[in-house]
């Protein structure tokens, strides 16, 4: 805990307010159109799927929606195809 936390403890309402603002801004936007992060996710997945078969078991997607910045993390394990042909040619 740092010194700032001591002051923050005074009121939790500002935290609640900020969390709600971020969430509701996202949800309201989302009602009319899908949000950018979701669109990116879908399109990136589609591009990858064109080249390799995505095994759902080796895929993890995580997002973090912030007020000024959001992050999208796609973790895909792509099987190493070069291993087999090399072994065959050897």
């Amino acid at each position, binding site marked *: 805990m740092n010194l700032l936390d001591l002051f923050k403890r005074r009121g939790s309402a500002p935290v*609640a307010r900020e969390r709600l603002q971020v969430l509701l801004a996202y949800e309201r936007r989302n009602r009319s159109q899908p949000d950018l992060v979701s669109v990116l996710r879908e399109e990136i997945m589609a591009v990858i799927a064109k080249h390799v078969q995505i095994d759902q078991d080796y895929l993890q997607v995580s997002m973090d929606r912030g007020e000024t910045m959001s992050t999208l993390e796609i973790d895909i394990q792509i099987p190493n195809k070069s291993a087999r042909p090399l072994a065959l040619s050897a």
Partner: protein
Amino acid sequence: MGKVVVVTSGKGGVGKTTSTAALGAAVAKTGKKVALVDFDVGLRNLDLIMGAERRVVFDLVNVIQGTAKLSQALIRDKRVETLFLLPASQTRDKDALTEEGVAEVIGKLRSVFDYVFCDSPAGIERGAQLAMRFADEAVIVTNPEVSSVRDSDRIIGLLDARTVKAEQGEQIAKHVLVTRYDAARAARGEMLSIDDVLEILSTPLLGIIPESQDVLRASNLGSPVTLSDPLNSAARAYIDAARRLEGEDLPVVVPFERKGFLDRLLGRRAA
């Protein structure tokens, strides 16, 4: 094989979601693997109470419809390693849940987790019935207030009739969790007593959670009260209730009003 616990009440606003988060976190803190499942499709809130609202990618409906794997939809808690959340969908309506789909998801969760807590929506409709359908045990969240007790009685009737366990002729274990208990009002005889509630519902007591500002604070911060403020009276009551749920034989203490010296002197009532 894990245990499936539905947290239900009939009436809205009595503290189902808060209690799901607090009990689940308390159990997970003991090292057990715990999944919290939000069944309130269209009006989800467990993600907000758990502070995971910014991290939702997939939800229960995605898993049931096959657009996401269960492992992809589960969100791991940032504070407790063994605690996971399966959010409800915010955009689709309750009809998106099918009994077969829910059966499959609960079955998978049961095989991986020690405890699966199902946070029921208010009401007695489809969503509430699906939340309780595959439960082994039920926590009935009740406020010491007439309409809440009446609705709890209705829910107890449903638990004994509409769950898979009940249909197989087995008993579903039921526990009453009294929340928002105000010791000062109870002392003045202005609130149904715990004995009244238990006698009317004739169901064993899991715990009594005192009305507390810290519960509101925990919601504001997006953290179960058992994690954000574990020494607080409400948090301690939840932790004890979680231990009872795990089979420990702990006596329930009815919260009493603690008056300070000045309060006594001036005959003031605690707020």
